[in-house]
């Protein structure tokens, strides 16, 4: 059976990992390759690198970063953040990325999803969707620009649209839950898994072992992404996997 995936996410700025990483003794706490290798050793199933570099001039740093990581770490790598055209995608895939994650650019130019899927295959194209519940309209609303800007898109229809355009996977973050450690937004993932037939990565809200158990027991998502619980060593990947195994969830 296909294993449920546990996916740490690393924020990268100018080729350096931001946020504290203290789960293991590292000689260089900001080195992406060293951190990626440590996560691989822990049993991470995949890594997401999010480029948070503010300036376009520094974009090339991400290509170098992926080049270095992919020479030492042999697991699936997804790269997102600021990718605006097919040339950006190609450079990252060539450097060793396996999947490209599009977020704001998918909203501003949906044709990019299709262009990427046609050139590289749907399996290469992840669309990341940042979502917040809108109490006024009782809908999930899509946000862009790192969650700073609201759009007029309803999240479930947007998910269907990006899949129709060729997205092979969705990385959906609940902004309501992000940073709260109150668990994944189960209702959101119920709605999404019912609406589309591609793998879904749940993101936002995990703070304890039970949160991982819950999202896999209660919804049909394929993967759970987490950042701070792993980076700060609050939970380890072996702990999470053992806990899932005890609940009868298939993990690697």
């Amino acid at each position, binding site marked *: *059976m296909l294993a449920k995936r546990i996916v740490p996410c690393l924020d990268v700025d100018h080729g350096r990992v931001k946020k504290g990483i203290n789960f293991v003794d590292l000689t260089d706490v900001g080195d992406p390759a060293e951190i990626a290798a440590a996560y691989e050793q822990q049993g991470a199933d995949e890594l997401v690198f999010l480029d948070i570099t503010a300036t376009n001039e520094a974009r090339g740093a991400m290509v170098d970063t992926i080049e270095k990581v*992919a020479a030492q770490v*042999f697991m*699936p790598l997804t790269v997102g953040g600021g990718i605006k055209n097919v040339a950006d995608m190609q450079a990252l895939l060539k450097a060793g990325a396996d999947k490209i994650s599009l977020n704001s650019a998918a909203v501003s130019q949906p044709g990019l999803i299709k262009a990427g899927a046609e050139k590289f295959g749907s*399996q290469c194209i992840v669309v990341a969707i940042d979502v917040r519940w809108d109490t006024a309209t009782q809908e999930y609303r899509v946000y862009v620009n790192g969650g700073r800007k609201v759009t007029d898109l309803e999240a479930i229809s947007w998910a269907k649209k990006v899949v129709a355009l060729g997205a*092979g996977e969705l990385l959906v973050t609940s902004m309501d839950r992000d940073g709260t450690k109150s668990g994944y937004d189960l209702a959101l993932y119920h709605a999404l898994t019912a609406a589309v037939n*591609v793998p879904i990565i749940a993101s936002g809200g995990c703070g304890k072992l039970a949160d991982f158990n819950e999202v896999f027991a209660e919804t049909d998502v*394929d993967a759970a992404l987490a950042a701070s619980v792993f980076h700060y060593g609050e939970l380890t990947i072996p702990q999470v996997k053992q806990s899932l195994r005890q609940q009868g969830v298939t993990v690697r």
Partner: protein
Amino acid sequence: MIVVVDYDTGNTRNLKKALDYLGIANQLSSDSATILAADGLILPGVGAFQKAMAALAERGLVNVLQTAAQSGKPMLGICLGMQLLVETGYEFGVTRGLDLLPGEVVPIPTDNGLKVPHMGWNTNQVLQSNPVADVFAGEATYFVHSFYVQTAAKNIIAQTDYGVKIPSIIQQDNVMGMQFHPEKSGQVGLAGLARFNKELVLA
């Protein structure tokens, strides 16, 4: 020397990186003479069957790969590269494959609610023990594909369960295919590539 056949497909450089990491002599090439002089070949592949066969044909490599295989040269097809080894593909129309193994490439059925692509880590069940396959027995490897190979039972070395049984390693004599990506399957994947080199290429 292993030659990784370079025909502008996705995972070529990641394969090279894995071989470099393992210290296995290798080069990327689309040159016929280089390919025919290699001790072993790896045929990578990401994307669609029809386009990939067209890309091989454009470079004049269809006959070269067939000649190499028939001469007994060890050959490993990976992911789409494995699918190209068989007779026929049904992705975007009917396309003739390299025809080194019997079989055809068909879509993973979606009628029972399976998500396609089959993407992620799945466990290998070895049906016919051999030194390369044994590395993967009971181990999870990374799969990304929407089509799969159907071939004769005698050529199915290992399989994985995704609602349908998907051949994960196929082999006939010197020609072997892996549906998963060993270059993306962590330590077990690297061990499998090293074993292919030791048991088939250097042997």
